[in-house]
């Protein structure tokens, strides 16, 4: 059987082994001696040379002697020299090299600008976090000491200048990725070749400016394999040179330096004040405190999420199930802070939503907040609290819980009464991985109501029109996020800091349905996260969204409303990467 491009489990579902320090040390041993592998020829730019890198703020002094293109000796802070394998690659005047330190779980990735003699040394180590396989890093800025010469005054520096960019990369060994930088602290990557490109994932990242043309980027795949990637990128030639260090899903060591070539996919807006080019917008330490070595703020949703059984879900839902709790004003309104007014459009109406591949649901709507529903054919009606919004004339979004359903279903519905069409995101619980993690079925269908003739064949459809776009959502002052529609089946969300820099970011499976021109109904699942099903109806004309969140946790089941003012931040040109090529099969 020919293989597919898809893994058995997506990255967020892989139960990565908890490697011990001894196991890691053993696996690193050979690579520390031989150096990283490389599909491209290693550079001998430093062969036969000695350099001494001095770093600021108590960072290490690194005295290197390079012999050939794969052997070096290093004396740290004037200590004894030790021998190791290394690999170096160049990109213009920039040299990137990496090595491990034999007998330890440590190593370095080093960038030297031969023109300015400025250097950045990234110290790397394992077993620095409770998950030993997660690579830790500390970035040191400095320079190559030139005996008899004054130290250069400039330094490479953390920056937000990469924020908003997106690239397609193909490495020399074959891996292809899409990489988006919608944050100055995190990044979003799509593993096109390793994982089939279905989902995008997010990782804490560093962005370091070498000069206006060259930047250093890092990411650590926290919450996943813990693998570390760093590279220098040339923004004009769209080339990269870097290193990958970590353990894959089968615990095999990946330690190689790579070259890559890519394509520029676009630039979307970022929202810091003009002139604010600072990096590291999410400080590792609280104000007034000093960050520990390697510290950074990492969003760890899988670690912190409640993981419940079916019995626990049933008990929690029995204890508390609430739909659209009374809205508060001010900060307590949270994600409902910019929610528009409800509509009573449905009040007094009787209609049936007939889905193509799910039971039809009959409705008798009492008023603007109460309705009665039943499955077609059932004798009894069930009363439910609902809320509705008219996002575009004739298009009503509403949601309600379906009390009594074994999987505690909730429906987020968009009904176009001018077209007679309906789409429902049917949320449900008791899903395979964690019972409180929401699943979703997308139901397409028609509205049946007296005086309304629905279409026979036409339906709302999944769309790729939103793909590549970034749209910000301001729910309330200081409560702003941005969606990046990164793949046809997932989206990521970026949380802005108090200075409106892109901060923490995460992603989940999602889908997009076109309701009308400029009106899109979409969902995302916070899998291995909070388990929430988020749904929003985005009106690109009014730049407002309304939506319904469906969540189950130890405090019970809830359906709540969200609403935001939006801004279109831009669009990446990525649709072509998700087309199935007209190749393959047996010749």
């Amino acid at each position, binding site marked *: 059987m020919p293989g597919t491009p898809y893994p058995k489990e997506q990255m967020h579902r892989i139960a990565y082994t908890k490697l011990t320090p001894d196991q890691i040390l053993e696996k690193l041993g050979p690579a520390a001696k031989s150096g990283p592998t490389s599909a491209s020829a290693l550079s001998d730019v430093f062969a036969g040379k000695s350099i001494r890198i001095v770093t600021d703020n108590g960072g290490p002094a690194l005295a290197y002697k390079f012999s050939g293109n794969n052997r070096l000796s290093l004396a740290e802070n004037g200590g004894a020299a030790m021998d190791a394998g290394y690999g170096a690659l160049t990109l213009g005047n920039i040299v990137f090299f990496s090595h491990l330190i034999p007998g330890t779980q440590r190593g370095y990735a080093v960038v030297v600008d031969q023109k300015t003699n400025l250097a950045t040394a990234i110290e790397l180590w394992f077993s620095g976090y409770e998950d030993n396989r997660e690579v830790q890093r500390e970035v040191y800025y400095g320079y190559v000491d030139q005996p008899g010469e004054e130290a250069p005054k400039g330094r490479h520096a953390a920056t937000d200048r990469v924020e908003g960019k997106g690239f397609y990369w193909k490495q020399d060994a074959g891996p292809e990725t899409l990489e988006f930088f919608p944050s100055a602290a995190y990044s979003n990557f799509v593993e096109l070749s390793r994982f089939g490109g279905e989902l995008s994932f997010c990782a804490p990242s560093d962005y370091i400016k070498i000069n206006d043309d060259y930047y250093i980027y890092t990411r650590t795949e926290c919450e996943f394999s813990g693998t570390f990637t760093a590279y220098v990128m040339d923004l004009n030639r769209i080339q990269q040179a870097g290193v990958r260090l970590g353990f894959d899903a089968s615990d095999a060591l990946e330690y190689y330096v790579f070259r890559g070539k890519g394509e520029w996919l676009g630039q979307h807006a970022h929202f810091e004040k003009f002139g604010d080019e600072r990096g590291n917008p999410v400080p590792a330490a609280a104000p007034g405190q000093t960050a520990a070595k390697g510290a950074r*703020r990492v969003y760890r*949703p899988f670690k912190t999420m409640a993981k419940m059984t079916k019995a626990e879900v049933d008990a929690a839902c029995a204890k508390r199930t609430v739909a659209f709790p009374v809205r508060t004003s001010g900060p*307590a309104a949270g994600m409902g802070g910019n929610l528009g007014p409800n509509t009573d459009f449905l009040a007094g109406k009787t209609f049936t939503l007939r889905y193509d591949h799910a039971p039809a649901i009959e409705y008798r709507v009492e008023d603007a907040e109460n309705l009665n529903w039943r499955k077609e054919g059932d004798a009894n009606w069930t009363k439910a609290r609902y809320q509705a919004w008219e996002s575009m004339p004739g298009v009503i979004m509403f949601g309600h819980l379906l009390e009594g359903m074994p999987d505690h279903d909730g429906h987020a519905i968009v009904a176009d009464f001018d077209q007679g069409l309906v789409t429902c995101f049917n949320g449900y619980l008791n899903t395979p991985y964690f019972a409180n993690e929401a699943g979703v079925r997308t139901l397409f269908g028609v509205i049946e109501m007296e005086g309304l003739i629905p279409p026979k064949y036409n339906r709302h459809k999944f769309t790729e029109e939103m793909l590549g776009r970034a749209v910000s959502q301001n729910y309330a002052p*200081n*409560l702003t996020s941005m969606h990046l529609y990164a793949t046809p089946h997932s989206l990521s969300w970026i949380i802005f*800091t108090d200075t409106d820099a892109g901060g923490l970011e995460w992603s989940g499976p999602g889908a997009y349905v076109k309701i009308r021109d400029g009106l899109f109904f979409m969902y995302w699942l916070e899998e291995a996260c909070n388990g929430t099903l988020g749904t929003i109806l985005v009106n690109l004309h009014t730049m407002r969204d309304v939506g319904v969140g469906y969540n189950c946790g130890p405090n019970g089941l809830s359906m709540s409303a969200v609403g935001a003012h939006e801004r279109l931040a831009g669009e990446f040109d990525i649709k072509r990467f998700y087309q199935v090529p007209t190749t393959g099969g047996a010749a």
Partner: protein
Amino acid sequence: MSPKEKAAASTRRSFLKRGALLAAPLAAVAAPAAILVDDELRARLARLENEAAIRELHQAWLRRINAGAGDAAMLDPSVSGIAPDHSAEPDAIEVAADGKHAAGRFYCAVETATEIPQDSTLGQMARAQGSGFLRRTERRMLKVEYAKTSGVWEIAKAELAPA
């Protein structure tokens, strides 16, 4: 003493005498007036000293509020900063006649920071990155009542009113 010297002394004495005579009625009425002036000066001095002490107390209190020392609790726990509003009316401190009570009125820009509810992923992520507060700045009038106990001014009551 020569006759010339006698004459000069006599003239000087008579001048002094005349002056004394002229001054006498003035001194006779100035004695109670001086006491009044003295009282007024003392009262004015006391008032100025009280106002200065209250102003110092007020400034120290604002510094603690702006430093997040928790001193805004009596006002509103969400208050995270108070800055003078120089475009508004000047500050006013009125010390009561008993010298033991006073009231202050200060126009200011009040920053509030209210914790974003943690019941959403967005709220949790905002908190995780060190923010997670809704911040607002509004022009308000800060009304403060002071009391002097054992010679030391203290804030008895403080409230924010619409500016």
